[in-house]
């Protein structure tokens, strides 16, 4: 397992380097150069020249790349052109909302999907199974921003149980902050929980029809024992794949949901930065999100190896 981990760690670093190169290259190919792009077509030449100087655009690209990456490593992301403050400060401030939101939504997803999926698979064809399948069909099909909008209408405008949007900050108390994140987290989690419950059910059904389950039952194990000892672990591989995929959906989904609920998170920041052409912020936020997804992928791969020892044997 240690050898496998070390090997995966090496490719993790390689992925990060290549991802940073791709993002850096994307920003490099904007029409004109980043300075004139950020300032727009009506900018005075001396203003553009000043910004070029500030951004270090007069240096060769490889020097700028090395400077940018060393900055990322040491936590210096540069200065935002529109906010006029260090990007790292803005990002940390926004991350304090987006990260708990993603974790909250992912926890809701797993907490709902696992028991529901297992229940449906073990009672295949029953009324429970049919209800679960019908509900998750709807959950998968609802656009989460539309669902968010409907929840605002019902729970904020009509029932007044929650505020329609905004975030009081963590200083306002843990409960108040969690309450503000509840509707957004449900909106983010609903489609993901529905997908995961269906994958869990489908994967478990595949496993339950295997010969070794029949053998286990023939040995005298009850259905529940066979499920716990043999079926669940084997059914987890596709489920883990989907959880890994879902994390990036949650991060990306947050960009949209944060806009519906006016949450000042990372998603809203990147969207504002796009419209304000603040390339430094876009570059940094995209890199952070990409970094997060790569790390999660790495953890999912380790989880694979943990769940299925055959997969690490030949690594």
């Amino acid at each position, binding site marked *: 397992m240690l050898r496998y981990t070390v090997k995966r760690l090496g490719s993790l670093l390689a992925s990060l380097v*290549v*991802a940073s190169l791709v993002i850096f290259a994307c920003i490099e190919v904007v029409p004109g150069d980043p300075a004139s792009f950020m300032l727009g077509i009506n900018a005075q030449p001396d203003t553009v020249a000043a910004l070029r100087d500030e951004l270090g655009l007069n240096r060769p690209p490889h020097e700028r790349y090395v400077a940018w990456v060393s900055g990322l490593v040491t936590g210096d992301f540069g200065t935002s052109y529109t906010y006029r403050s260090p990007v790292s400060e803005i990002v940390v401030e926004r991350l304090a909302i987006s990260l708990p939101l993603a974790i909250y939504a992912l926890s809701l997803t797993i907490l709902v999907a696992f028991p529901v999926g297992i229940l449906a698979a073990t009672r295949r064809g029953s009324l429970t199974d049919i209800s679960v399948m019908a509900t998750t069909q709807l959950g998968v099909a609802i656009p989460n921003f539309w669902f968010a909008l409907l929840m605002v209408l019902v729970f904020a405008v009509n029932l007044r149980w929650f505020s329609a949007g905004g975030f009081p900050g963590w200083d306002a108390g843990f409960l108040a902050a969690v309450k503000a994140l509840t509707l957004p987290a449900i909106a983010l989690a609903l489609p993901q929980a529905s997908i995961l419950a269906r994958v869990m059910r489908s994967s478990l059904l595949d496993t339950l029809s295997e010969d070794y389950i029949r053998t286990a039952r023939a040995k005298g194990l009850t259905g529940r024992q066979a499920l716990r000892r043999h079926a669940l672990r084997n059914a987890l591989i*596709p489920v883990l794949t989907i959880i890994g*995929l879902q994390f990036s959906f949650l991060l990306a989904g947050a960009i949209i949901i944060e806009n519906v609920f006016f949450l000042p998170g990372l998603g809203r920041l990147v*969207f504002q930065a796009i419209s304000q052409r603040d390339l430094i912020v876009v570059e940094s936020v995209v890199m952070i999100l990409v970094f997060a997804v790569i790390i999660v992928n790495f953890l999912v791969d380790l989880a694979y190896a943990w769940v299925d020892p055959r997969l690490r044997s030949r690594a």
Partner: protein
Amino acid sequence: MTEEALFRAALRSRNLVVGNLLAAAFAIGALLSLFWTPYDVTELAIATRLQAPSAIHWFGTDHFGRDILSMIMVGAQTSIAVAIVAVGIGMGVGVPLGLAAAARRGSLLDETIMRGNDLVFAFPSLLIAIMITTVFGPSALNAIIAIGIFNIPVFARLTRGAALPIWTRDYILSARVSGKGPVRISVEHILPNVTNLLIVQGTIQFSLGILAEAALSYVGLGVQPPTPSWGRMLADSQTLIAIAPHMAMFPGFAILLTVLGLNLAGDGLRDLLDPRIRNAPP
């Protein structure tokens, strides 16, 4: 199962029939809109704006007085086209990559494909769309490229993940002993065993494609006005939801029902095609 028996079983599958009918209704609406819509979707009629559903305008009108039913019909074209092309890109590139990676597990090829996948996968479709939009500006093509690129690692990882345990099976060992090469084993033994998983994922990605297109249009990164799109219609409805809820309801239900139809059809297909599931003990 013979073709005729399969066809009869298909007609008996409630999921398949209902799903196909729902999906077909929107596909027909989209096709019909190429030739005819109840009203011209580019025609503004401020005098009749924000009208509730009635005999004249079945789904009501929007803030510019445009007929919402006509806009939903034209919007279906965009949604379906974007999703089909995006899933095609994902499957066409992702599945062969996943099969190759599994066949050569632990090799440089596997490592390269999987790390390439990680890299692409690390950019959610919204981030790809954001980066493309930053550089080239928003358009429907951006949405197709962004969703399509994101689908590639989804299919590649899923195929590899499902193929790996199959490669450890005894019947694969016998196939290797009998002299079959990795390509033949992948095509003859691995692919048929992962097809059902791919169908289920294919329908999920198709519906996700429709949802992603709606989301991208909702935040202004996809189809641009005046071309109607379901996501754009929902964005327009947001500030008017208290006085004209029908503006939000109909496009939302259009997305919901299309995606629901596709998923039901996929589910029905899965139950129909997988004998292990069909005969599995309850």
